[in-house]
């Protein structure tokens, strides 16, 4: 029986990789759970509050986006809008070209992966460097991140050391401190030489226009201190209504992502540097990106746009732990990716329609989501959509026959009687799903009809 690509990918994972992903995810999940319960009497209350604030914002997005734009423009920030990935990439390039800029450093932002910004810029002669350590290593390896917060969850120190050696960053040394120090020294030169610093944003406050950037390494600060121009590419769903709500989001975000109370750096940026400051960008641009988000906004899946990109759902997901991020064949893996990736794929929805099926609907993700997204409900809705649009069913058995049987009691009871035959059927001629089941599992003895006759007989006795 043909297997879904995700299952095939998972089956081919080395034990070492599977174990790194599983243990790394579990460790983050445990830290998250511990710190949240230590700090708050009612974690669910906070998650629901954050979820409601986000939902409200999404349902009034036009007015909040407009407010943010106004505030930013009043601070001298140049605000742009990009309909899709190509438009966003072109916007960035236009800004670079207007400044004669050839060198760019960037912080970690999933949106830049989504629009495939770096390959585009590099094709146009811009030298680009990822500065988040994990993303830098991914870049050196021409690899892809496998987690939205911990991009190299799937790599070990030996693989990293080999990469560094191959790329001329020193002789082989797999000590984490040495790896980090080498990246620090290498990238420091790049910050100081760069013309443009590019970032995303975790939040945009409509009240003040502030972009909030949440990081740990200091790379984001450097991208905004050394180069003379700052470009932020931000999905329109990052809006929050006001500064006050940030206290709820900031308290949930780092705890949900890594178990930290706050990330090391939380930056609130709403303009370029003042004229007399020696450091920092003299010019700031914000590019608000659609790229499929408005389409999602118009559907019953809009709750997924609340996502804070914390990764808590990935960390707890038993399927993610077995399959790892690359199995999801898209920028956003794990439970959030299983909903968001097929939706953002627009016309190519069917190519990713198997992602929502890679789940037992266990609900662990919904329990940890800091903005209370009902991910399992969204997954099951997407399965319905996939079926209606004729998505290939892959290895999922068709249940039309079962459903017919289940609406015809006489046929059902007959099947209960006939099922005994399965016990005697050689596996090769059994119906597909039964055969697949028994690839790895035994089936119990068939007992169809046994309960019913017991119940009937005792009824007669009375």
């Amino acid at each position: 029986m043909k297997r879904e690509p995700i299952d095939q990918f998972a089956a081919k994972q080395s034990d070492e990789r599977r174990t790194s992903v599983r243990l790394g995810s579990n460790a983050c999940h445990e830290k998250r759970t511990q710190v949240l319960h230590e700090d708050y009497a009612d974690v669910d209350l906070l998650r629901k509050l954050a979820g409601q604030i986000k939902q409200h914002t999404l349902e009034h997005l036009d007015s909040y986006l407009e407010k943010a734009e106004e505030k930013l423009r009043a601070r001298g920030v140049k605000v742009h809008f990009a309909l899709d990935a190509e438009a966003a990439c072109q916007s960035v390039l236009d800004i670079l070209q207007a400044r004669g800029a050839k060198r760019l450093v960037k912080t970690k932002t999933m949106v830049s992966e989504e629009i495939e910004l770096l390959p585009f810029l590099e094709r146009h002669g811009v030298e680009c460097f990822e500065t988040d350590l994990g993303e830098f290593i991914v870049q050196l390896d021409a690899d892809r991140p496998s987690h939205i917060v911990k991009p190299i969850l799937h790599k070990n120190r030996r693989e990293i050391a080999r990469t560094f050696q191959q790329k001329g960053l020193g002789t082989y040394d797999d000590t984490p401190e040495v790896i980090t120090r080498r990246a620090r020294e290498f990238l420091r030169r790049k910050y100081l030489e760069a013309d443009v610093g590019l970032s995303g944003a975790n939040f945009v406050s409509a009240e003040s226009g502030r972009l909030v950037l949440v990081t740990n390494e200091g790379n984001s600060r450097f991208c905004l201190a050394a180069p003379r121009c700052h470009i932020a590419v931000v999905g329109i769903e990052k809006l929050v209504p006001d500064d006050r709500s940030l206290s709820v989001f900031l308290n949930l975000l780092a705890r949900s992502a890594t178990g930290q109370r706050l990330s090391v750096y939380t930056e609130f940026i709403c303009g370029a540097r003042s004229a007399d400051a020696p450091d920092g960008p003299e010019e700031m641009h914000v590019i608000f990106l659609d790229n499929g988000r408005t389409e999602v906004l118009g559907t019953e899946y809009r709750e997924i746009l609340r996502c804070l990109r914390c990764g808590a759902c990935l960390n707890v997901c038993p399927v993610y732990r077995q399959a790892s991020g690359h199995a999801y064949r898209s920028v956003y893996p794990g439970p959030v990716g299983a909903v968001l990736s097929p939706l953002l794929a627009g016309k190519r929805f069917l190519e990713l329609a198997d992602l929502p099926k890679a789940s037992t609907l266990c609900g662990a993700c919904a329990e940890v989501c800091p903005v209370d997204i009902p991910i399992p409900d969204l997954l099951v809705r997407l399965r319905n959509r996939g079926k209606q649009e004729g998505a290939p069913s892959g290895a999922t058995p068709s249940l039309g026959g079962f459903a017919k049987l289940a609406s015809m009691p006489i046929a059902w009871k007959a099947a209960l009687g006939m099922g005994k035959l399965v016990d005697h059927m050689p596996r090769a001629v059994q119906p597909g799903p039964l055969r697949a089941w028994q690839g790895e599992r035994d089936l119990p003895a068939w007992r169809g009809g046994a309960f019913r006759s017991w119940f009937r007989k005792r009824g007669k006795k009375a």
Partner: protein
Amino acid sequence: MTDARDEIFARIRAALKPLEARTTLPTFDASVAIARHAQAMPDLVAAFTQALEAVHGRAFRDPTALAAWLRTKEATLGYVDPEVLAALGPAFATELTLETSFSRARVDDYHFGITRAAGAIAESGTIILDDRSTPVRLAALAPWIHIAVVPRSRIHACIPDAISALGDDANIIWCTGPSKTADVEGILIEGVHGPGEQVALIVDG
């Protein structure tokens, strides 16, 4: 460009139009997001110190002790914001070389940078920087050791307080401990692109 803007807003409005019942913005008390340990902090300086140390930062109240610590770290050359020289006292420069203007060309020469903090947060051990108080961004970022001079009156109790006090500076940074990463096998390493030592010197005022 304006076409893209108009198009996006049109799409948003079209997407939301069929929605009959809209979620209202919930009201909530700021205290709902304040961590348990921060609900009662009679001594903000002590609470701030404890929280800063919990994230592997260091707090000093005595410039002499700070200078001695710098010497044990063999951190002898540093940038100092001239406005804090008075708070450091004349003895600070003993066996240390202090420069009052930051040279970008010699960015890696500085072992430490001493700048003014705009404030701090006791709940989280956070040091608040902004362009007004730290106009030389690199001075607080590039050297391995960053020392922020924190006036005790500007220590906010909790995160909601600090948010209300954000003000209009275009670049506000909350620093909560030294820079770090756990990207390599989940192992915590301190001192990545930013400082490996985050210090607060708490002064009167």
